[in-house]
């Protein structure tokens, strides 16, 4: 091939767009740092906005795959949107690299040779959080998640590792912004730790209102990494200081790839990168490696796949490899939010991972051909 | 007081008035007669500024009002009892009389809600009813009262006795006589010509948008040929 063509569909408008924008910026940063090329071929990235609607995502996939004949599809933030659009790629023999959504179904029985999760399996953060609660000797937990599949998966993940007692569970409306009623219930339940899986704006509001209601004194709030990332710290403000969260990446990781990424990202976009940005960046790095390793012969999809599976590149998260279901095996860390020394707040990771070289619980159900 | 000269207007492409003239002096009562659809209401509406004349001029109290917005025309001292009543369905009877009340040129005895309730006891009984809940005749009374409470210099009544019971109708004619004594000018459109002759000083007959006859009550009363020719009797 004389160039590499990538269809990038993500949520770039509306209330949930911050995540998609970060993934896009991370991805494009990598392309830029490679001089507009990936694996030596000029890269053409077709960016489009799914408007947070599965139908639209599906149409955009169809357009990228059938009209533009792209080599790779990537970009989608949310699992429900990705699951709706994915068949358009897979049915038309196009590889999809997921920079974020990694639902458990695709890790298990629905695993697919053309699907790669470059991020982290859906349950992993929550399993790590459960393990952390054990480590701290916490006995009672209250769980909150939106009423949709990823929400249920996440709480299942937490319960898988947590050894104490779940004294309450609340499934809120997807996209809900006011949590007064739920917080009142939590206060009445008096849990030691509150674990809230609330991505995007939902998390921001929840945390703000948690603080406003004065719950922080009685209950420890534990969060998955994406709910305590730079995009949340900004709007919520100082109240975030000292909160714990779990993630597979942190801006303070010392590996050279990460140092470069964080520095370049700040230079380019004048803000701290988030988890999402790191995932977008890694996705482009992975494509770069695969195209390079196949010497640009993108026509041979089998070879491209093999190159992707072996994933020879320096990820900003440190060492990682693909499991047989093409989901990552990697380490997870506890992070805590502290001062960045310039009046702002930033995540800092504990040195020891809470889960080391961790895969996922579904890989056994995956019948992937080699 | 009111001068209409060469007035032309209409709706969209259809012209209704073709050079209409009309004069009303201070304290004068003029009857406007003509068959259905001859343009009486259209004349009234253009005086009120509700439709724009295409030609001609309208002068009230020395000021041209042909291009004025309706609310400014009204504030010059013209009040209208419109065809078909048009009371406000979501205002109470009392609100009709308080919201639009103006000092105006009421003379020695300005109209107040209290005086109007004396005039129409039926309305007093219904004072807190909404306009939309009134019977047809009650609405008609309200429309007259609403116009009077602005204490206008010129009162225009477009079929103001339509739908009134005979007793009340008599009452209205009496009111008109009283209003006249107070010095208001009036333009009255009504189908009870005999009554109108009793009240008005002069009359204008309109046919196809043009004035075709004008004269005093005596002249109109005497010339039954006119009635036959222009009013269809």
């Amino acid at each position, binding site marked *: 091939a004389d160039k590499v063509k990538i269809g990038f569909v993500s949520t770039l408008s509306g209330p949930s767009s911050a995540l998609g924008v970060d993934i896009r910026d991370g991805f494009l940063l990598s392309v830029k740092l490679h001089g507009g090329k990936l694996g030596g071929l000029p890269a053409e990235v077709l960016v489009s906005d799914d408007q947070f609607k599965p139908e639209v995502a599906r149409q955009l996939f169809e357009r990228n795959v059938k009209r533009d004949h792209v080599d790779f599809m990537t970009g989608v933030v949310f699992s429900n949107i990705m699951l709706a659009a994915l068949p358009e790629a897979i049915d038309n023999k196009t590889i999809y690299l997921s920079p974020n959504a990694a639902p458990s179904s695709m890790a298990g029985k629905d695993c697919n040779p053309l699907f790669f999760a470059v991020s982290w399996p859906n349950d992993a953060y929550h399993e790590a959080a459960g393990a952390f609660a054990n480590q701290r000797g916490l006995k009672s937990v209250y769980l909150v998640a939106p009423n949709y599949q990823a929400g249920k998966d996440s709480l299942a993940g937490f319960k898988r590792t947590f050894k104490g007692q779940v004294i309450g569970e609340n499934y809120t409306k997807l996209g809900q912004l006011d949590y007064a*009623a739920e917080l009142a219930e939590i206060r009445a339940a008096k849990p030691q730790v509150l674990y809230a899986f609330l991505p995007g704006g939902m998390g921001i509001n929840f945390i703000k209102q948690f603080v*406003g209601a004065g719950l922080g004194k009685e209950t420890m709030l534990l969060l998955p990494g994406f709910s305590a990332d730079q995009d949340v710290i900004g709007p919520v403000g100082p109240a975030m200081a000292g909160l714990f969260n779990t993630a597979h990446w942190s801006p303070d990781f010392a590996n050279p790839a990460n140092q470069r990424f964080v520095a370049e990202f700040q230079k380019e976009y004048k803000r701290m990168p988030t988890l999402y940005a790191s995932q977008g960046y890694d996705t482009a790095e992975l494509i770069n490696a695969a195209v390079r390793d196949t010497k640009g012969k993108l026509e041979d999809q089998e070879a491209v796949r093999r190159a992707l599976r072996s994933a020879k590149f320096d990820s900003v998260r440190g060492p990682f490899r693909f499991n047989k279901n093409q989901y990552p095996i990697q380490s997870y860390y506890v992070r805590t939010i502290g001062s960045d020394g310039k009046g702002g707040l930033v995540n800092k990771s504990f040195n020891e991972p809470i889960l080391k070289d961790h895969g996922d619980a579904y890989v056994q159900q995956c019948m992937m051909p080699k | 007081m009111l001068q209409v000269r060469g007035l032309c207007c209409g709706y969209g492409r259809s012209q209704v008035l073709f050079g209409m003239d009309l004069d009303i002096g201070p304290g004068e009562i003029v009857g406007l007669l003509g068959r259905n659809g001859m343009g009486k209401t259209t004349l009234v509406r253009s005086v009120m500024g509700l439709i724009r004349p295409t030609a001609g001029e309208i002068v009230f109290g020395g000021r041209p009002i042909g291009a004025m917005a*309706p609310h400014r025309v009204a504030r010059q001292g013209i009040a209208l009892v419109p065809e078909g009543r048009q009371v406000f369905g*979501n205002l109470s009877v009392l609100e009709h009389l308080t919201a639009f009340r103006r000092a105006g040129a009421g003379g020695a005895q300005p109209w107040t809600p209290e005086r109007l309730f004396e005039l129409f006891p039926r309305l007093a009984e219904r004072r807190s009813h909404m306009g939309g809940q009134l019977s047809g005749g009650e609405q008609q009374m309200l429309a007259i009262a609403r116009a009077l409470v602005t204490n206008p210099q010129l009162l225009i009544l477009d079929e103001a006795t339509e739908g009134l019971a005979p007793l009340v109708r008599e009452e209205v004619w009496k009111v008109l006589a009283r209003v006249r004594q107070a010095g208001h000018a009036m333009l009255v459109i009504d189908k009870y010509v005999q009554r109108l002759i009793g009240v008005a000083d002069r009359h204008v007959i309109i046919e196809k948008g043009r004035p075709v006859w004008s004269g005093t009550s005596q002249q109109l009363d005497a010339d039954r040929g006119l009635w036959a020719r222009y009013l269809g009797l």
Partner: protein
Amino acid sequence: MSGLLVFEQALNGFQLGFMLFLLAAGLTLVFGVMDMINLAHGSLYMVGAFLAAWLTRVSGSFLLGALGAVLLTALFGMLLESSLLRTLYARDHLSQVLATFALILILNDGVKMVFGNDLPLSVPAALDGPVQILPGLVYSSWRLLIIGVGLVIALLLYLLVQKTRIGALVRAGAANREMSSAMGVNVGRLFTLVFGLGAALCAVAGSLLGPLLAVQVGMGENILILAFVVVVIGGIGSIRGALIGALLVGTVDTLGRTLLQQLLRDALPPQWASAAGPALASISVYLLMVVMLVFRPQGLFPVRS
């Protein structure tokens, strides 16, 4: 379930209710009184919130920011009314729907062009924390403030519309614009003022809710539907109805999310409860409206006969 929890949930319901009221009041005025379906009402709320956030940042004071937002939004509303919306009064509801829908699209993208996708806005430090309102019950002071402001505005509005001459004139203008102007009322200016008032209320709601929720593009759409529900339940054009309707909707929504789920969990097997609970919570408000309309098709306090 303890008494304190029920009380706290009632407060939560009221707080939501008063917020809805601020939006519904403007909507019901414009809609019931001026007979104009304004889908862009939610966009005014968004504009108000963005202005509040921006002005707060520029001035460094939330109070100044909020006041400025109220003023500017009112001005913006009046500008909108006198440049565009007034040509729509004489048109049918459908033209109004299309035009104000177009406004939503334009304002959403327009705000995004000017301010970006979202702006930070925080509760002023003094009111950030909780306060003790009863022994054993602490409550967010900001939410208390919202309840207070809502109450005061409700009272003022009720007096304005029901008890003043202006209120009567506005209603008259709505019922029959032509006749009102023939009665000497400058209907155009009156409507512009009313619209400005509605916009100002939107900005009040935006400034109060912005710090609690989020100041972001598209924030108006969902709350718009709830505001419409409130207006319809209360009876179109009725301020009293809007208040009662808003409190009702706020309470039902809060109960649906908490008490109802609790009851279901006690009454049904867990997998049923976890399936039915959230679904019922989401539709409780709509259910309320349907039941309401079946039994009182004109809303609680019908204004027109």
